[in-house]
């Protein structure tokens, strides 16, 4: 009995030693070497593709942001700012676009709450952008998987041009041209979907001169 117990212990001790060896190789050495190479060769990507404005970073071009009116009484107001291109709805955190709580709504395909939310959004976006409700594209009405989607469809970007131009007293043609410059096609022509990065678009919009 005592002999078999000793054997069992010795067995597990060897297993533990093997686990520690693999921890050193795949858990310490591997990520450190990858980090070293990544930081040396691709520092911009490895550090989050940050967008800088003069001094510090104002965004990561990969992570979506809220573009709402300034908060009142310390609370985010939640109403969209007409001066900016608006991103998709977000389920990351109560206010949306919180990278500390990435995630989706997880509402089912026939969930009554989701159906109502989609209909309400259609009405609200159509009124905000002054377009017919039927022309609002699906990405403007649905929350993304990550809640941090930085992209919208080209259709949704073009839909917002007149509203943004008016709020900023800009020539709509100039804003339309800016959007056109930011439309990205499918990668290699066939991977994924066409899109406009709202972060980069809004960042460049801020630099556009008034007419």
């Amino acid at each position, binding site marked *: 009995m005592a002999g078999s117990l000793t054997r069992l212990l010795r*067995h*597990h001790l*060897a*297993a*533990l*030693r*093997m*686990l520690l060896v693999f*921890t050193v190789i*795949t*858990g310490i050495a*591997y990520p450190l070497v*990858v*980090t070293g*190479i990544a930081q040396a060769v691709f520092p911009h*990507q*490895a*550090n*989050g593709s940050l*967008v800088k404005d003069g001094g*510090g*970073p*104002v965004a990561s071009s*990969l*992570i979506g*942001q*809220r*573009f*709402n009116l300034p908060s009142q009484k310390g609370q*985010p107001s939640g109403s969209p700012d007409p001066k900016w291109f608006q991103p998709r709805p977000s389920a990351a955190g109560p206010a949306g676009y*919180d*990278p*500390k*709580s*990435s*995630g*989706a*709504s*997880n509402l*089912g*395909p026939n*969930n009554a709450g*989701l159906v109502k939310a*989609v209909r309400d959004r259609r009405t609200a976006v159509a009124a905000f952008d002054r377009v017919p409700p039927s022309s609002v594209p*699906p*990405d403007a009405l*649905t*929350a*993304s*998987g*990550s809640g*941090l989607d*930085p992209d*919208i469809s080209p259709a949704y970007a073009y839909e917002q041009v007149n509203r943004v131009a008016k709020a900023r007293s800009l020539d709509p043609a100039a804003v339309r041209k800016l959007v056109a410059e930011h439309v990205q096609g499918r990668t290699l022509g*066939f*991977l*994924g*979907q066409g*899109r406009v990065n709202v972060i980069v678009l809004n960042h460049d919009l*801020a630099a556009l001169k008034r007419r």
Partner: protein
Amino acid sequence: MNETLAGWLQILALVGALALSFRPLGDYLAHVLTCPRHWRVERLVYRVGGVRGDADQPWPAYLRGLLAFSAVSVLFLYAFQRLQNHLLLSVGTKPVAPDLAFNTAASFVTNTNWQSYSGESAMGHLVQMAGLAVQNFVSAAVGIAVVAALIRGFTRKKTDRVGNFWVDLTRIVLRVLLPISFVMAIVLVAGGTIQNFHGIQSITTIAGDHQSITGGPVASQEAIKELGTNGGGFYNANSTHPFENPNPFTNWLEIYLLLVIGFSLPRTFGRMVGDNRQGYAIVAVMGLVWAASVAIVTANELHSVSSSAGHAAGGMMEGKEQRFGIWASALFAVSTTLTSCGAVNSFHDSYTPGGGGMTIFNMMLGEIAPGGTGSGLYGILILAIVTVFVAGLMVGRTPEYLGKKLGAREMKFASLYILTTPGLVLVGAGLAMALPGERAAMLNSGQHGFSEVLYAFTSAANNNGSAFAGLSANTAWYNTALGLVMILGRFLPMVFVLALSGSLARQQPVPVTAGTLPTHRPQFVGLLTGVLLIVVGLTYFPALALGPLAEGLR
């Protein structure tokens, strides 16, 4: 280029890349698992680890090594999470609660990577890279080791030796998983996946708001997460998160990585048994099931079938990312549920009843098309054994597969293997539905809520790890129940596979006669596919009828 053509090209490019990898990777794996020479660094690993790498083991010893290694891994990972606040790079995280730490430890050791926590707030960088990611490597290697032992059962005769667990484990990690992950991690970083040790960085946004940008060694973990069909995301949002999966190319690459070992292993099998055609038959079944599933899910999502939310929005974009769209999301969803990966680039809970139901059915198939690293191949080989047995009954002959007789003992192990997972899924989901507190954890109500629970137990028992994530599964009951289901769903089948391997290895092969069922012809491909669908369909039909089928037919 229109959407349909682009979608088809995306799929064809993937199939082409997998076809190109099939021979070289399959042959290389066969070489790794059979070559008699050790590398010097491997000898060093055996010496430091205190194990013997020079002699093959009988199946009970092989199994003992595997179970000891896994048991120690669960304990180590549990302690690691409980003590993480005392460690380096904890980035302000607290110790993980006991039930959640058990669930997570079980989850990563069993190659499931079910996540009841959200990575960005619950786990420090050190736990992620030196705890969780280590299991991504070794649990994947354990799966391949078990199938290697099973194949040796077919190729060897009159012996009780099925291989050496420590040698298989070490070689698969050092010669296969580590080099591929290393190269792919760098490619992912080039594409925009982050790789740093920053904590949370507060920034003032473009509109003057505040935002916290997260950091972490993501790319190194992402590469092995897909390659080893683990699927545990660095972040809660998994591969939908732009820091894990920044663009359509990285997305395509991640799908390729999570399929490539599973689809190449049949070549390894054919090589090792000395008849490549046997491998082609197996990969044909895998490919058929995969292609059919891609077609079904894509069609359901494109046409918003039976989804009132999809009709209201004009498209099934809830839970999907703009940069991927429907085609790339459906392709990922099918691939991740037909392997044991469980990473997601879109959230399945919001899929159409047909699309989401299909992801559940994919897992119920036992994840064999192509399945998890190793586990997919041993799963389909068990079904091949059942198929040969059924065919043998039809003509009244003793069934044999690859020259080995399938007698009562072999069929017992195969049957036990097949019964384990459905038993766990149906009992687990049934219990959860019987308990009012556990029922309340559903986010959606009615049939869709039941699908969330069914998905959770199917995912755990099959070691997938993806979720209909609306279910609030971070409770003591779900953490404990799902943790146990994951452990039983992983190791019981392995016990049966290794026992089967030992029993096959002892036999003297029987010569092929005119009455032997050929197992490399289209006829066998058809038979195996049929047996697979009938066995799984009959087992799960009532449960599926209560969930996705009822919802889809409303």
